[in-house]
Every structure is written in C-alpha cells, then in structure tokens.
C-alpha cells in the first residue's frame, strides 16, 4: 500500500527507488507468496521445536517423521483437491462421506467377485469411479442446477454417508486382497508409498494450478466468474470439472485409507471435510475464491498432523488438541484477512 502511494507521488509514475519503511517492507513481504509460505514454515518449525523440547528423539526420529507424513497423506490428497474447488469459488462438505462411500462400494465389489482372476486394481478403479461420480453429481447440481455449493454438498454429505451404511449394512468390510495392502502399505527406499502418492498428488496439483491453462481458468472463475464468462470461459463446465477432480481425490484417499486400515466401512472419513477446509484456509487460499496455493495447503496439512503428533506423544487428549486446532484456524484467518486488506486497492 505504502509503496503504491509513493509511486503516485513520484512524477510520471517513475518507480521510487528509496527504501520504504520497515513496516511497509514487512507488509510487502508478508503479502508476497513466498512471505505467506514463510509464515507457515515458521509455524511448522515452532511445532517441531516444541516437539523436540518435550519428547526429544521420540519426536525427531525418522520413523516418527514418516508416521506424521503417512497420517498426513490421506487428508493431504483430499486437501489438494479441495484447494482447487475453493480457489474456483466453491466449497465441498461431502468429501468425508464420499471417502466412506467409495471405500464401502469398492470392498463390496471385492467380496462379490470371488473369482480367482480378480485383481485388486478393480477395487482401485471402483473407488476412483465412485468418487468421481459423486463429484460429478455435486458439480452438475452446482454449476447447471445453479444451487449453492454449501447446500448441494451438505446434501451429498448426508446422502453418501447414508448410502454407504445401506450398502455395507453398517458392517466393517475387510479388504482381503493382499495385493492392495502390500502395494499401498509398502515402502520405496524407506518412504511409505502413501507418502509418495501424497507427494505426487501435491506436485501434480501445483503444476496444474500454476502452470496450466486449467489452473489459470480456475483462478479466473473463482476471482470473477462474470468476467471469466465474458472472456469466453465455459464457467459451468469448468466448475463441474473441479468437483469431479475433488471426487477423484476422495476416491484415491479411500483406497489409501483402505490400505492403511485394511477395511471399508461407512464411518471412514468422518470430519475430513473440516480438516481439509481448515488446512486449505490455513495455507492461504482465499475462502472467497480467486487465489489458491497448493504449497500452502501442504503446509496446512503438515501443521495439523505435526500438532496431533506432538499432542499424542505428550499424552494429551484429543479434546485439548481440538481446542488448539480451533485457535490455529482463527489465528490463520485473521492473519490472512490483514494481508488481504493490505494487498487490495483502496
């Protein structure tokens, strides 16, 4: 802000060379993408310091680091998808329910097809298709039915969870295919496959959002849908695709969750929607759309999971943890608003 005021006073729009005040410089730094991520890095490091100080090597060991990452991977994949939907001006409350439905549907297929030549890839495909299908329903109702995303996905949240209970008859359906568990539960060079999948999804998400036409259009649709429409972007189709992508992410998350828990069950993914939305918002994606950061989202997820880990290692209960999470969300959004108001025009 201050920098712009300087520019106006300077003759003929010459860029002022004099250094702005310290406050202004910090403000400019904080509102730049790198600066926003810097804040997240500091928060994450702070948590690590607390972890090291309280439980030492039990926190700092390689195994514990992998545990944190492994537990972050499922919610992380969903959060990357959620980053796209929120950047595009939407919201999805049904992600947890879609994970449950996909896991139950896939395990049901598996138990019905007892043929010898059955391959676990069928489970994966089913979960992905179910996720994408649920996302498609969300997207069509929101984009073409012109309904509020909040309402549509709230309805999907109830309906998908209910359908999962109907299909599974509220029973735990054990995954018997060793192939699936071996593949997704395995490690490559000591790194769990789940973590690798998360890393790939995050990298792919970053490329998609920042380096492709699709990502640019997502920002435009979220930032000003009318301007995007008048610039020739098919806003409704684009919006639908965003929800389908998130549905796919939920299907993938369901597969990862099945591999970790060796079961498909209608209670999978409970409260995932809140964790995912919170991680996205903490990361710096604007809840009103138009600005999104996959890197920030990854940090958001890691901060949450590290926090959980530190609490667990210190034998603190989940209630205390929930209070801390709430405080972090509020602090992050407050900070974001201040940065946003500084970055906007008068």
């Amino acid at each position: 802000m201050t920098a712009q005021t300087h520019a106006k006073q300077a003759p003929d729009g010459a860029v002022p060379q004099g250094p702005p005040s310290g406050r202004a410089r910090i403000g400019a730094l904080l509102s730049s993408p790198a600066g926003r991520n810097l804040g997240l890095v500091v928060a994450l490091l702070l948590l690590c310091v607390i972890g090291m100080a309280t439980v030492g090597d039990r926190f700092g060991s390689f195994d514990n680091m992998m545990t944190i990452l492994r537990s972050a991977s499922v919610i992380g994949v969903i959060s990357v998808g959620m980053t796209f939907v929120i950047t595009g001006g939407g919201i999805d409350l049904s992600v947890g329910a879609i994970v449950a439905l996909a896991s139950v549907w896939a395990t049901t297929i598996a138990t019905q097809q007892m043929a010898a030549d059955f391959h676990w890839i069928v489970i994966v495909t089913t979960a992905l298709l179910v996720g994408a299908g649920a996302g498609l329903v969300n997207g069509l109702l929101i984009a073409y039915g012109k309904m509020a995303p909040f309402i549509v996905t709230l309805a999907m949240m109830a309906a998908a969870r209910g359908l999962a209970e109907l299909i599974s008859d509220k029973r735990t359906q054990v995954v018997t295919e060793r192939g699936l568990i071996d593949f997704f539960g395995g490690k490559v060079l000591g790194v769990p496959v789940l973590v690798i999948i998360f890393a790939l999804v995050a990298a792919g998400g970053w490329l998609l959002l920042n380096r492709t036409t699709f990502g640019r259009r997502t920002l435009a649709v979220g930032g000003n849908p009318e301007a995007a429409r008048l610039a020739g972007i098919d806003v409704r189709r684009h919006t639908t695709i965003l929800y389908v992508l998130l549905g796919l992410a939920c299907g993938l998350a369901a597969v990862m969750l099945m591999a970790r828990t060796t079961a498909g069950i209608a209670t999978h993914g409970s409260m995932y929607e809140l964790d995912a939305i919170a991680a996205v918002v903490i990361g710096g994606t604007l809840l009103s759309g138009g600005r999104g950061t996959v890197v920030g989202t990854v940090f958001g997820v890691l901060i949450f999971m590290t926090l959980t880990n530190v609490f667990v290692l210190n034998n603190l209960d989940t209630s205390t943890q929930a209070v801390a999470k709430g405080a972090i969300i509020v602090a992050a959004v407050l900070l974001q608003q201040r940065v946003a108001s500084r970055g906007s025009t008068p």
Partner: protein
Amino acid sequence: MYHPIFPHKLLHFLLTPGKSLFTLTAMTGPPKASGPSPAQEPATDAAEPLLAMHGIVKHFPGVRALDGIDLDVLPGEVHCLLGQNGAGKSTLIKVLAGAHQPDAGRILWRGEEVRFPRPQAALDRGIATIYQELDLVDGLSVAENIYLGHERAAFGFTARREITTATAELLRRLGHPEMSPSTEVGALSAAGKQIVSMARALSHDARLIIMDEPSAVLDQEEVGRLFTVVADLAAQGIAIIYISHRLEEIRRIGDRITVLKDGRTVATGLAAADTPTSEIIRLMTGRSIEYVFPERPGVAEAEQPVLEVENLSRPGEFSDVSFAVRPGEILGLAGLVGSGRSEILETVYGARKAATGTVRVGGEKVRAGRVGSAMAAGIGFCPEERKSQALILSDAVYRNITLASLSRFQRAGFLNSGGEQEAAAEHTEALDVRPAGVTRPVGNLSGGNQQKVVLARWLLRGCRVLLLDEPSRGVDVGARSEIYALIRELSAQGIAVVIVSSEIEEVIGLSDRVLVIADGRVVAEAAADDIDEHRVLDLVMEGDAA
C-alpha cells in the same frame, strides 16, 4: 435535532401535520396542476434555506467527481436536480447522505454549518435518501423494514404492536392506508417498495427527502400516485430533492431546478414550470470541458457489412432491433440507462440469449447465447462494469490480457508464462498503459488504464467486431481523448466498432452513425453529422416521439 423515541411523542408528531394532509389528499391530484399551491408560496419566497451547499468538491482517484457544487433547498419545495450521466448527481446525493465526505466546501443545515461523517449523522439531522436501488430487506415485513436500525423495543423484545400502529399511521399519512404493515416487502410491487422507503424516511422525522430517479421503475398510474404523495409531503413543509431524466415529470412536480454539468452547478433556482426545454437542454449539454474527438475518415460505401443484426428481441428488454456495421465504421447506440442499449450489446455478444433474431459476422450466423461462438466469429466485448464484468482485479495485468487467448500460449496444457508477459507487454506499450509493467495487479491502475487493459485483451486475441459498452466510464478527462483516439485508430484498422454510452456527446462525437434507443426500440437512425445532442436528448427524454 430531536429524535422521537417515545410513542406518545411519535403519535403527536404524526397527527399534527397529518390533519392538513388528509384534507389535501381528499382533494386529490397534485396541487401543481393548478399552479403553485398557496401552502408553498411563502416557502419559495421568504424562508431561509433549509439546506445550502457551497463549493462542494469531491475527488476520486483520477476523477474530479464534484468540482464546485452550489445548491440551496427551501423548506417545502420540490427541488429538481438535472444533469447528464456523470454530471455528479449521484456523488452529490451521497455527500448529502453522509456516504461520501467532501474534500472542500460547506454544508449549511438550517443556517448552521454541519458535517455528516456517517450516514447515520445525516439521518439524525433529518435528511433521508431513497436510492434508485431500494435498500429494503425482502424477507422482512413492511413495518420491520421501516424501523430497521431504529427498532422500538421494551426489555429487549421488539414492540411489534407499537411499530405496527406507527407504520399504519405513516402509510396513512402517505395516502396508502390500504397497505398492511405486516406484508412481506418481497411481495410488493416496485411502487409499493417506494412507498415503504418513503415511510422509512418519514419515520426518521425527515425534513429533507432525496429521491434518486424514483419514477424509473414505475408505470404511468404509479407515477401519478407517487406525485400525489410528493406534493403532500411538500405541503407539510418537507423539502424534496427530486432527480429524474424526464422533463415532463419535472414540469409537473418541481418548483425549482438546479442543473449540474461535469461536477459543477451551471444553473440553479430556475422555475420548473416555465423554463423552456431548449434552455434546460442547452445548460445540460453546454460544454465546460471540451473533449477532443478524432476526425472521421469516412467509410467506403461499397464495403459489405461485417456485423449484421436482424430483428433481435428479448422480451421485456428490447424488441426488433436491426443494424449493420461495415469494417472501419463506428456505430453508436444512444439512449438512457434502462433503455435496453447494454442488453442489446450483451445479446449480440451471446452473453444473453436472444429470444428471436439473428446475428451474423461476415455472413456466418453466430449461435445465440454462446459467448464462445461470438468470440470464434471474431467479436470482442468490453462490458459496462469494468471491475465486476471484465477484470480480475487482484490478478496481474498480463493475466487479464491473455485471459481470452490462453490457448495461444499453451503447449500440452502448460502455459508459457514468459510468452504471455511478452505478448501482453507489446500491447500495453502500444496502448501506453501506465505505469508500465505487466505483473502488477490490474486493480492498482486508474480507470483509463484499466480500460486499456480490457481493450488490449481483445487486440491480443484479434477481432473483426468490437463492442464497447461505456468505454469512458470512470475514465478521467485527460485519458478520455486518448481512449477516443484509440477507438478511432482501431476502426481505421478495419475493425467494426459498436459503442454504447450514456453521454450523448460521446456517442455523436465518436461515431459515424447513431441509433437512438428508447424503451427497447430503435426510434431513430442518422449519420452522426446529421444529428445533434439536442435532437437525441429530445428523442430520449420526451419518449417515443419518433
């Protein structure tokens, strides 16, 4: 000023002037019909002004919206404010309503200098504003809307019966006893909502009510009833500032006229009844600032039209609109806000779907209601509301420019960001966008430079037809001539241009040919050389004269 809080005080206030009101209402018809009413005579002569504004100045970034406004309003008069779009009427009433702070000038309220730092401060003094966009809550009842913000309550519970009674009194005072205080406002007609807004103004004990184009959304009969109410209020000593484009209305209802032009008062205290129309129009159009319009090179008659619009209609917006534009020609659509001109442009572009009629570019039919089809045919569009319809304000300049041509910069879906910036910079340099640098947020640029960014979007894409809705809105005086020259230059390159503007001078000055639009119909077509501002104003202000 004393603000009534207690019910008996309120009733007292309502009933005392009410007696004379009922007799007046019983006589019916605006008293103006038989010359100024006796009740208003002393007001217009002697009384000291209720409100006096001296030398009010208001700047916005890049624009001097008000540049020395003088206005005085007497108790009990209907004071009409006239001026073309952009003359400063809206800014002036926002200053009066406490929504904007003037940069210079004095406001005297009943002889005492005042400031309105907040809208509530103006209301407390007794100045109520009824905006064009009525600020009512559809889901609340009439009574709840009227007392919104100054609810009456006892022990924290809203005093429902009390506000119902008070509302019924207000509605009776306004001559609409048939309206029920408990009706939901969303169910009311436009006229009904206006009555509610006026009742709300009265509930604040208003001494001055500002009405911004109240008749724009009303039909003939409703306008008649509105005038009765306005005349009654004036007879009670309440002053009205009345803004309208319709001269005929002003003659019927107004006492005095003030004319604004380019943010200045050019005439004040004119008698509404007998100032000749030609004089008023001369004052509204007389230039205090000369815009430089580029020369018209003239279009080769032989050229085939590139854009052909035939019998285009959208029920309720416009009907049976036909025109054709040749390469290198600028066609201007002149008309008032709400005449359908912007809707016509948006329909040609496919942003609205035509009910009937066709749009052809180079002989090829464009699919109705498909922006993609229009763009593929070579149509570009700069919408009326730059900030809400054209730009992604927080995004960089270059990204706004390349938004309509992203496919050119992609390979296998990946964008060549460097290429984008280079191409965008080429156009911003050619158009002289300042400050230079395509990575800064477009929201930080001035209006004129933002407009250039929108133009650059279409130049980068390349188009045969360019539709421009209000190309100079929010653009300061210096940058206007630049935009005008730019538009003429584009047309000289063979682009067919259609412009829409509320500023008639701009349409005539810039175009080769002018269509006059009134009430969704083309009422006149002429070469720009054969028509002048007065004629166009005549056509649009006096209705379907042609």
